[in-house]
């Protein structure tokens, strides 16, 4: 039986990708951002997951305004890095896991989550920056990846509770997949940031840290945080944190926090990172 062995949460700031690609990770500005991932890189090298279900949002790369899927699952064999306006990131092509992806898609639809199925897609920084943070700069990613793209750009995005419930459905899907796979679920994006308007640059370290606490301690309360609270307290782009709840919902009722990191700033954004493990 396939099983979910861990969850990872991380910001996916594009400037972090640029810092890695340009060899700036040891610069004074970037060093404290990356130092918080040292533990996680060692940990994941030992864990060797077979598949990562990587929850992220597309930033006007694969999806333009023609089609806006709320939950889209990538079922392709592979996914190329997108050209976001300055050429594609120099990172390996992302290898998918079509067997598991199609299984999850079917299972979730039967479970009343009407997933959009994507057979051809390029993936942007939302997906590739987390891979770089956890795996560095390998010639090939050491894991298969199932992209799960969530609309958090055009309002309304899905509610936190809906994200949590999708996470639970994903867990049921994974556990009904024949084959012995170690699967991780990653929730990416956030934490507080606002990239637009006169209020841009907003950071709310207190709120972010409460959110990090609640991921392992009082997680049921996370489900009912309304969109307006994310907007007011964490900036217009802080809404990305609803995607962490898909990961959290997939881990079950109790988790152990293995690692935690928080740093301000990376470009306009507060960087948050957690490694969680389900408690059986």
């Amino acid at each position: 039986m396939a099983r979910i062995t861990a969850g990872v949460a991380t910001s996916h700031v594009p400037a972090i990708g640029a810092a890695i690609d340009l060899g700036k990770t040891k610069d004074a500005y970037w060093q404290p951002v990356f130092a918080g991932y040292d533990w996680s890189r060692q940990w994941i090298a030992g864990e060797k997951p077979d598949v990562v279900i990587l929850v992220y949002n597309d930033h006007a790369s694969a999806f333009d305004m023609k089609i806006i899927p709320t939950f889209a699952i990538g079922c392709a064999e592979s996914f190329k890095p997108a050209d976001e306006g300055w050429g594609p990131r120099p990172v390996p092509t992302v290898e998918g896991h079509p067997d598991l992806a199609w299984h999850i898609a079917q299972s979730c639809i039967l479970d009343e989550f009407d997933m959009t199925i994507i057979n051809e897609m390029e993936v942007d920084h939302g997906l590739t920056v987390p891979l770089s943070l956890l795996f560095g700069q390998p010639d090939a990613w050491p894991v298969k990846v199932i992209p799960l793209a969530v609309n958090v750009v055009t309002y309304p995005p899905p509610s936190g509770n809906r994200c949590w419930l999708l996470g639970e459905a994903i867990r049921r899907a994974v556990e009904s997949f024949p084959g012995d796979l170690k699967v991780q679920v990653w929730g990416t994006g956030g934490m507080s940031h606002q990239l637009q308007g006169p209020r841009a640059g907003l950071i709310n370290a207190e709120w972010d840290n409460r959110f990090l606490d609640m991921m392992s301690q009082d997680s049921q309360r996370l489900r009912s945080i309304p969109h307006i609270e994310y907007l007011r307290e964490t900036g217009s782009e802080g809404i990305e944190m609803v995607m962490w709840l898909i990961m959290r919902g997939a881990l079950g009722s109790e988790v152990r926090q293995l690692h935690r990191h928080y740093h301000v700033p990376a470009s306009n954004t507060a960087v948050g990172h957690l490694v969680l493990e389900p408690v059986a």
Partner: protein
Amino acid sequence: MSHLDIHSYLAAFDDIPGTRVYTVARARKGYWINQFAMSLMKPENRARWKADETAYLEGWNLDDDQKAAILARDYNRLLDLGGNIYFLAKIFSTDGLSFLQAVSTMTGMSVEDYQAMMLAGGRSPNGVRSIKEGN
């Protein structure tokens, strides 16, 4: 979960200072701004855009206000006209600007002052949560 009232859900967004939430109303208004911006993801389109911006805009269903705001790189105005920041990012990326540089232009601060604010922990949410509450 209790059912949300869509009208109060949307109305609350207008109570956030200095913020344009990308609602369906904005998305409909700015559809072609965003689709134009999206076209700059292709290198051949970037080359045509750089060669003659005004001529490039003629190919899109944009009104004069929208064209003027694009040419002026007036990002706050573009948000009002229905632009979304992730789409607008294709314009400033093509200009060679980072998110930080482009975002600072919307705040009335210099890039240096904005950068210094971020290094000092960012903009505090105090006083900018709600127009009505003034908190």
